[in-house]
């Protein structure tokens, strides 16, 4: 089981600002003896509705930090972040907007 993400979601004016810190090796596959191992898909939902969907590649750094803003959230709403890596490993964590 991969390590949990750290997620913060807070109102910034009329938008919700989300900050996520993921724990992942993010190996490019270019190093000898280190096969490619990186997060490929990232999804963020707010109360079940997708607010961000991303396809990542090996260029993203180790232990990625992701920050984004979206409209339509309010304090108390649930923000859920999920990722899937190229090994099929998954991680989902959630937080409440403050």
């Amino acid at each position, binding site marked *: 089981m991969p390590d949990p993400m*750290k997620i913060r979601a807070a109102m910034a004016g009329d938008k919700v600002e989300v900050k996520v*810190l993921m724990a992942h090796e993010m190996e490019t596959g270019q190093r000898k003896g280190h096969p490619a191992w990186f997060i490929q898909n990232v999804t963020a939902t707010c109360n079940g509705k997708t607010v961000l969907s991303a396809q990542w590649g090996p260029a993203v750094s180790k*232990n990625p*930090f992701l*920050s984004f803003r979206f409209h339509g959230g309010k304090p108390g709403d649930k923000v859920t972040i999920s990722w899937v890596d190229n090994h099929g490993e998954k991680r989902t964590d959630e937080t409440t907007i403050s």
Partner: protein
Amino acid sequence: MQTIVRRMAAAAAFLFAVSGAAMAGDPPIRVVYHINESVQKAPAVLHNIANELDAEPNTKIVLVAHGPGIDFLLKGAKDPKGNPFTPEIETLGMRGVEFRVCNNTLKSRHIDRSRVVEDAKIVPSGVAEIAKLESQGYVYLKP
């Protein structure tokens, strides 16, 4: 003679038990990082902090900046390679690091409070903050 030896052994066993107990309930390490040098120095300090957290994830870290040391905590600040400090600061912030900026510096250098990044807190005096944290048991580190 024998009783003395036995007593010493008992005392040693007692000491061992005490240090063992202290280890089990060790309070987390608390560190205050001090920076009063320009943006040239900041990347190394941030790197040191990240390394410390990698080695001891439960360490509580506060960074106190004053003088030229606050520059990297101003909005739009860039390191000597031209990269913004924001991702590094926010990443460390997510890992529990606190950034504190000296208000005396802001006043004397005529820097508006609004120019300080949101992840940093403004404290009345940088040096007083360091002294306060040290008196609370924080370990002083100046890379």
